[in-house]
């Protein structure tokens, strides 16, 4: 035993010496390296495997969309150079010429058709692409997107079409599985290999540990100012560790930034912090099926008036959020500037009195504790605020893995939910959160308040096929007004998005309110 240990020690020392000698050579890398730390890494290399913020961020690094959002929420061309509506159901896209995939295959209209067909198969994306009938390749550089009905969001949805290399993903892999198979829970060709047109190629990946990407030398966008030749992406889940990693200089760029550390980062002269209003709204739903009291609009209104959401934003969120009075954030079609936060404790007490609940009552509430920024603390603050109008709240918080089943089962009277519209459009909020729950149409899937107003439903449905954008906006603003007057739900705030980087990393030009920084364009000085 002793002898083995000794031998092992010798091996270790020898290996160490060897390593020390070899180390300097490895460090001499050419070009700029960006060390990136986020809270999680992409779950797969297949961009269609999951509809989530992390996967979209990855898609923008390794793939390119047909078109993309700008900072100002307008649409700019990417793989599609131009487009036109040729009839109410068809939009024609003219594709960029001379673009090559990472595999070397040329990018053509066929790839767009392949990609859309695959999107319609993907469990995550098929819902979003339900209104689309098909894509038709007119010639190599022209493709038509055809919808089933006239559809106002065709262009916005095209930001989700990241063309995949149809040749690369054809055929079968070694295990006999088709290369384009969408496999969520096992190995597949697409989960482990990529061929996109994007600014970076994946060179090394160990899930949950790191993802290394090199700049694509043949990237078509020669105008892109990006000068990063390598990205080393490490997931760091713990907020404090991620912040420390940036402060100590071990990484160059972090996202997200926890609100409680913003001041510290802002004070650091070597670090740039950017925070902008986001689009994810945090709300509470008051279950009218569970509680007789919540059927009374006055009680619901009283609760809204009792909750000091500007106070929550100021203290718990450290100003890193925007207090909300409605679902749609500013910039969305349905945003109604008249609907502002309502905090007025006296009015709340008055309303409780009018409703006949002056003495208050006792309710239950659940909230996640690792899903939204400071979700647990927000819930805790709400409990205190409601106690001031006599409502005693029994709160239980739980991790997200357990939360959603409980949410669906509606185990508590008040339930917290945050929502980001995948379509970047107001109607999406109402469809999931406040339209009458309907198993058949799938509307109101996350409406655990069981609020139901047919008039509101009609307006949302009508807005879908409205092609006149002004008219559509009017309808959606009306929807917000109805929900506001009915006190359909309790709006709390929109979470801000925040990023921090070393001063020499120019992060402002690449970030946007959709939360997918365009890393292809990042400049390090």
């Amino acid at each position, binding site marked *: 035993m002793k002898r083995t240990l000794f031998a092992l020690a010798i091996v270790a020392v020898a290996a160490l010496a060897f390593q020390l000698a070899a180390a300097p050579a490895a460090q001499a890398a050419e070009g700029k390296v960006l060390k990136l730390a986020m809270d999680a890494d992409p779950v797969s290399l297949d961009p269609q495997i999951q509809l989530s913020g992390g996967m979209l961020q990855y898609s923008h690094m390794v793939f390119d969309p047909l078109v993309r959002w700008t900072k100002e929420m307008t649409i700019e061309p990417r793989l599609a150079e131009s487009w036109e509506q040729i009839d109410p159901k068809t939009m024609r896209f003219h594709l960029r010429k001379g673009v090559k995939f990472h595999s070397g295959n040329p990018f053509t209209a066929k790839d767009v058709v392949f990609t859309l067909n695959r999107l319609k198969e993907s*469990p995550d994306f098929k819902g979003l692409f339900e209104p689309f009938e098909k894509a038709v390749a007119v010639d190599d550089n022209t493709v038509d997107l055809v919808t089933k009905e006239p559809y106002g969001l065709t262009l916005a949805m095209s930001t989700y079409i990241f063309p995949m290399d149809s040749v690369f993903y054809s055929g079968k892999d070694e295990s006999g599985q088709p290369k384009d198979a969408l496999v969520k829970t096992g190995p597949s060709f697409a*989960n482990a290999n990529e061929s996109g047109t994007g600014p970076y190629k994946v060179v090394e990946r160990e899930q949950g540990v790191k993802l290394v990407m090199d700049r694509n030398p043949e990237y078509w966008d020669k105008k892109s100012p990006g000068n990063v030749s390598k990205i080393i992406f490490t997931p760091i889940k713990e907020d404090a560790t991620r912040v420390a990693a940036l402060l100590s200089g071990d990484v160059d760029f972090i996202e997200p930034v926890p609100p409680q550390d913003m001041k510290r980062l802002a004070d650091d002269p070597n670090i740039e912090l950017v925070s902008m209003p986001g689009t994810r709204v945090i709300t509470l739903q008051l279950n009218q099926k569970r509680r007789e009291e919540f059927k009374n609009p006055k009680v619901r209104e009283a609760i809204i008036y009792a909750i000091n959401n500007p106070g929550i934003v100021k203290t718990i969120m450290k100003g890193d959020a925007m207090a909300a009075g409605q679902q749609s954030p500013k910039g969305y079609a349905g945003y109604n500037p008249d609907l502002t936060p309502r905090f007025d404790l006296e009015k709340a007490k008055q309303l409780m009195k009018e409703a006949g609940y002056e003495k208050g009552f006792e309710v239950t509430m659940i909230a996640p504790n690792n899903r939204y920024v400071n979700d647990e603390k927000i819930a805790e603050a709400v409990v205190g605020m409601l106690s001031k109008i006599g409502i005693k709240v029994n709160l239980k918080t739980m991790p997200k893995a357990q939360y959603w089943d409980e949410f669906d089962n509606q185990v508590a009277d008040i339930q917290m939910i945050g*929502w980001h519209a995948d379509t970047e459009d107001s109607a999406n909020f109402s469809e999931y959160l406040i339209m009458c729950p309907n198993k058949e149409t799938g509307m109101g*899937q996350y409406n655990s308040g069981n609020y139901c107003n047919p008039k509101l439903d009609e307006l949302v449905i009508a807005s879908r096929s409205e092609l006149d954008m002004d008219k559509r906006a009017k309808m959606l603003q009306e929807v917000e007004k109805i929900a506001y007057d009915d006190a359909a739900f309790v709006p709390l705030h929109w979470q801000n998005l925040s990023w921090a980087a070393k001063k020499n990393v120019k992060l402002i030009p690449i970030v946007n309110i959709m939360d997918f920084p365009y890393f292809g364009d990042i400049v390090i000085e």
Partner: protein
Amino acid sequence: MFAFLIRRLVQAVLVMLIISFIGFSLKHAFGDPVRDLVGVSVSKEERDKIAEKLGLHDPVMVQYVRFLKNALTGDLGYSYFFKKPALDVILSKAPATLELVFAASLIIVFLSIPAGVYAAIRPRSFLSRLIMGSSIVGVSIPVFFTAIMMIYIFSVELHWAPSFGRGELVTLFGFWPSGLVTLDGLEHLIMPSIALSSIMLPLFIRLIQAEMMEALQSEYVKFAFAKGLKTFRIYMVHAFKNTLLPVITVGGVQLGTMIAFTILTETVFNWQGMGAMFVEAVERGDTSLLVAYLVFVGMVFIVVNTCVDLVYGLVNPMVRVAGRK
């Protein structure tokens, strides 16, 4: 001896069967793995389809029998999240944790034995009181707090040590990514191993001190002094050897616990070992990985505790666990 090991092996299989069964019957408590695989807006029908494909809708017993059948061929199931065989995931994370635990154990052994022995020999001295008092501070500060304070002081302020991860790794023997053989790797190891040992140290210092004080009062030590043997020899050979039984027992339990559940240290230092993987699996409801992991951990505990039982005989000839009754 041989019969003893065979008996333990049979028991080990039984234990793993029981663990996997408990794991299976309670796995719904972890949450729904499908939730984590899809975006929030995916409809229930789509989720049901995936669950159906994964066989999650079958009765628990059917799933369990299927698991057992596969386990016979060495297949402990697929991790939903990592999209790899669960055993592969566990084994790929094991080196990180084992190296961390190894380093922490070294610190514990080299600090707790001298400190505990000294505090027993000179119980009234100032240094002893300092050792005994300050060791308590270690257990009364949560490890996540110790860890993050160390990161802030030594990484952020002083830039002495790297703040996270394992640093540069070299693959040894073709399968063991090791940080022990590079300077960078060793630098990354220092703070996590100190943080991890800080919570275990007080227990060992106190145990050794208590047992040692008893041993020093025993007849044979007094006799040895009377015989005029060298003091150091009496302390280390006569007295210290007799303190080892509880120390090794507790050591075994703690070692197993460190290997299995160094959750907080690994999380804070972003150390990609089994503890961090365990939390990831819990948070993502990756039930198949969790069950496989529980079986693995059960094995670790049985191996460690069997070793402990074998060591008993070496330390104290009066204890016979291994031999015939």
